[in-house]
């Protein structure tokens, strides 16, 4: 009985053509799923597959079964988890293209359900990077603990140390710093923009490209500078994942001092804490 079609949509193609088409893509790309109803323009490619599609896939955009909806939410959760692993913000357009498909009309509901499951099951909160940006990231509701590193399967983020240092520098310097100043500081730690580093690899690329792509940092050219210089500021992800107070505490710890030893920064961090404590205006999944 294992070869029989199961009631749950499994998305298994049977023909060779389908096998080959679906191999190269997983849930992250084109999940063989309920999204390919008859209304989709992707049908031309898989005309022969329609007959062998699971019974659950609705032939037209009509009432959808509970199972179909459940499967769609499951796919969305998978997609978000996989995409977030790379730490690149997830675009709404990608979600719509690769997962939602024909279910576009109920996209806000699907996203809301997926967000609920992500938080309840995994402890990840789905948040929009910036209001109206239509890009999302997952925030961990669980505090990372030092001993996590011993039981992880990946290196976690060994580069976190470097990021924290840069974030600290930026904050302590008044929320913006010149790139040249960053290297002046990092050189003292044996980290150079032009030299390969044992742990960080290419520190210049890490700081000015990777951290920027992950939205931890903003990197902008300062006009009329010669030689050209850039400024670094916190990116939107930083404000979501950490806080001025947390970063100040990190800096204090590194110096073996108390956060209050920097009264200006401490005041600023306190104000930031208060602002965060005020009730949020929007939930995890925006309604637009």
């Amino acid at each position, binding site marked *: 009985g294992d070869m029989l079609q199961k009631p749950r949509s499994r998305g298994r193609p049977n023909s060779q053509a389908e096998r080959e088409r679906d191999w190269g*893509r*997983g*849930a992250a790309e084109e999940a063989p*799923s309920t999204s390919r109803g008859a209304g989709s323009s992707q049908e031309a490619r898989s005309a022969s597959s329609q007959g062998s599609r699971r019974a659950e896939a609705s032939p037209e955009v009509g009432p959808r079964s509970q199972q179909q909806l459940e499967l769609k939410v499951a*796919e969305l959760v998978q997609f978000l988890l996989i995409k977030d692993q790379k730490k690149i913000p997830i675009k709404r357009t990608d979600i719509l293209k690769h997962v939602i498909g024909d279910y576009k009309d109920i996209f806000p509901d699907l996203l809301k359900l997926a967000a609920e499951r992500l938080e309840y099951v*995994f*402890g990840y909160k789905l948040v929009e990077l910036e209001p109206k940006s239509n890009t999302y990231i997952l925030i961990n509701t669980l505090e990372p603990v030092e001993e996590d590193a011993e039981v992880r399967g990946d290196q976690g983020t060994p580069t976190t140390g470097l990021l924290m240092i840069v974030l600290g520098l930026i904050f302590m310097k008044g929320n913006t710093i010149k790139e040249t100043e960053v290297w002046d500081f990092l050189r003292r730690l044996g980290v150079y923009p032009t030299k390969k580093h044992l742990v960080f690899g290419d520190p210049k690329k890490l700081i000015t490209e990777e951290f920027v792509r992950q939205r931890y940092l903003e990197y902008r050219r300062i006009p009329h500078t010669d030689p050209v210089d850039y400024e670094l500021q916190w990116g939107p992800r930083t404000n979501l994942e950490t806080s001025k107070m947390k970063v100040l505490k990190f800096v204090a710890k590194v110096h073996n001092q108390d956060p209050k030893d920097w009264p200006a920064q401490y005041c600023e961090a306190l104000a930031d804490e208060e602002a965060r404590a005020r009730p949020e205006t929007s939930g995890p999944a925006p309604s637009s």
Partner: protein
Amino acid sequence: MEEGRAERRRRTEAPSHTQGGPRRAGVMTDVHRRFLQLLMTHGVLEEWDVRRLQKHCYRVHDRTAAVEELEDFINNINSVLESLYIEIKKGATEDDGRPVYALVNLATTSVSKMASDFAENELDLFRKALELIIDSETGFASSTNILNLVDQLKGKKMRKKEAEQVLQKFVQNKWLIEKEGEFTLHSRAILEMEQYIRETYPDAVKICNICHSLLIQGQSCETCGIRMHLPCVAKYFQSNSEPRCPHCNDYWPHEIPVFDPEKEREAATSRATKRSLRSRQH
């Protein structure tokens, strides 16, 4: 019989409501969430490592609570994961029967995790290797045979030198195991892709006569052709001086492996990097 159990659970326990509140069984706490988060960082994890991970999560969130029996702990989590079409699946390494766990996707083609880590031509190379492995008698495909198919790959053209490196990448990411220039599936791949393989290659796929799970490496009866995993053989013919095929009753022609559970635990705790097969005795 893990496969059978999972099958039965999927068919009989069809949920009648959507997401929202907790399921009828299983409530998630931060212990479970941290466990899941950290488990997800591994492609596949050995049982003793899973137990260590579980203890760690209790220590972080609930020092005073008694650590739940692993099987119950996992079943609890799986009952919550069910509606998401994923599951913590238990399997065993084919060469020496060590219990392993992986978080697997039940709903779509199980290459999704791979798909996000590899390029189109790399995935096609894996597919070619997979087909050779499934079609082989031993469960192994030689490097040469795999590399000879490099011209047939979809996507960007790949040279043999590059393909060699991609194969090593598969080994590093625990999709393949390499032994003396030959490749077979890692337990991770078997756990994650069992469904996909059974449905995509229904004629070529081999099944163990004892546990009914997918079989890549194993022993076969030379008379009737049924196959068994090495650990399944060890268990089935335990202290049997005259091993006979369970299907046709002919004398079982192969050496019966013996797996020593004590040695397993020692090797596990000493964190040996490479495991050698246990000495075989009759």
